[in-house]
C-alpha cells in the first residue's frame, strides 16, 4: 500500500470517530440544544475529514472540487437546520437544561 492509502485510511477513520462522538453526544446530552450543538459541530468536522480522505484518493482535481462543494453544502444545510430546530424549540417553550 502506498503512503497515500495509509493517509486516506487514517483520515477516514478519524472522521468516523468524530461521527461516533456526535452520536454518543446525541444519546447522552440532556436537552435538545446541547444535542444540536454536539451533532452539528462533530458532523461538520467529521465530514471534512472524510472528504479529505476521499480527496487524497481522487482521480482528478475536478472530483476534489465536487467533494469540497458537497462538504460546503452540508455545512450550510446543517448550520441552517440546527438554527431552525433550536428556534422552533425556543418557540415551543422548551427550557434549557440547568445543572
Amino acid at each position, binding site marked *: 500500500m502506498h503512503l497515500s492509502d495509509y493517509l486516506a485510511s487514517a483520515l477516514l477513520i478519524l472522521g468516523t470517530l468524530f461521527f461516533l462522538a456526535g452520536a454518543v453526544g446525541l444519546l447522552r446530552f440532556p436537552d435538545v440544544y446541547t444535542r444540536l450543538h454536539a451533532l452539528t459541530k462533530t458532523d461538520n468536522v467529521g465530514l471534512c475529514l472524510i472528504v479529505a480522505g476521499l480527496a487524497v484518493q481522487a482521480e482528478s482535481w475536478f472530483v476534489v472540487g465536487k467533494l469540497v462543494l458537497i462538504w460546503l*453544502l452540508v455545512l450550510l*444545510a446543517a448550520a*441552517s437546520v440546527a438554527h*431552525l430546530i433550536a428556534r422552533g424549540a425556543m418557540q415551543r417553550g422548551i427550557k434549557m437544561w440547568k445543572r
Partner: protein
Amino acid sequence: METLALLQWVLDALIGSGLLWLAWRALASPQLLRAVVWFVVFGLVMALAWVRLDAPDVALAEVAIGAGLTGALLLATLVRLPALETAQGEARQSGMRSPGTGILRYLSVALLSLVAVGLVYSVLSFPAISEGLAPEVGANLEASGVSNPVTAVLLNFRAYDTLLEVHVLLLALLGAWSLGGLPAPPATAPGPVLDTLARLLAPLLILVAAYLLWIGARAPGGAFQAGAVLGAASVLLLLAGWRPHPAFTRLPLRLVLVAGPGLFLLIALVTGLTGGSLLEFSPVRAGMLIFLLEAVATLSIGATLAALFFGERPNHGEGQ
C-alpha cells in the same frame, strides 16, 4: 482477501438488520412525529442498501423521492391534522388499539409467519447465479441512444412503463386537486436564516437538476432524479413563504404539468402510427428523442411533486 469479504458481509448484515429495526421503530412508535422521523431515517439507510447492491440510480431516486419528498409530505400532513380532529376523534387517539386487537394480532402474526416461511423458502431455492436480462440489455445498448443501461431501459426498451408512470403521477395530482378545499398550510413569516437558505439553495438546486438530467445518459441520473431535485427546490421555496404569481397558476402551471405526459403520448402516437411499433425509436434518432422526453418530463415531474406537496388546488375559490 478473506477478511475483506468478511467485513463486507458484516457491513451488509448491519445494514440489513438496521433496516428491519428502523422499520419496526417506524411502525411501532406511540407518537406519530417520531414514527415519521424513523421512517425518513429508514429511507436514508435504504439508500445505503441500494449503493451496496450496485444500484446508484435507485439510491438517488430513493433519497430524493422516497426519503425526502415522502417525509416532507408526511410531516406536512401531521402539521395539519390536529386542527382538523374534533374532541370526539381525539378520544380514541392512541391509534394503536382497535376492537378485537388481541385475537387479530395473534392471527396476523401466525398467518404472516407462514407467508414469510413460504417466501423465504422460495427465494432461497432460486439459483445462486443468474444473469437476468443484463446480457440482452448490454447487447442492444448501442442501438438505444444512451450509454447508461438503466436510462436505456427506462426510456427506450420499456418506455411504455415510463409513459404510464408519468400518467400515474399526474392522476394522483388530479385526484388530490379534485378533493379541493383543504386548509392551506399555515403561512408564517420565515426567519432570516430560512430566507437566505432558500435564496442560496434554489438556484444551485436548479443547476444540480439540469446536471442530473444531462448526465443521465452516461452515468447515474436521469429524468426522475432531476425532477425530484426540482420538486425539492420548489418545496424549499414554498416552506420559505414564496408563492407563485396568480397569473402563473392559472394556465401556465397546468401546461407545465401536462407537458411531460402529453409529449410522451404524442411520441407514442407518432411512432405507433408511422410504421414500426409503439414507442420504437430508430437508433439514429433515439438519443435526441430520449433527451427531449427526459427534459420535458423533468419539468413536469418537478411541478407535479411541488403541487402535491402544496396540496391545495391553486386559485381554488375562483370559479374554476
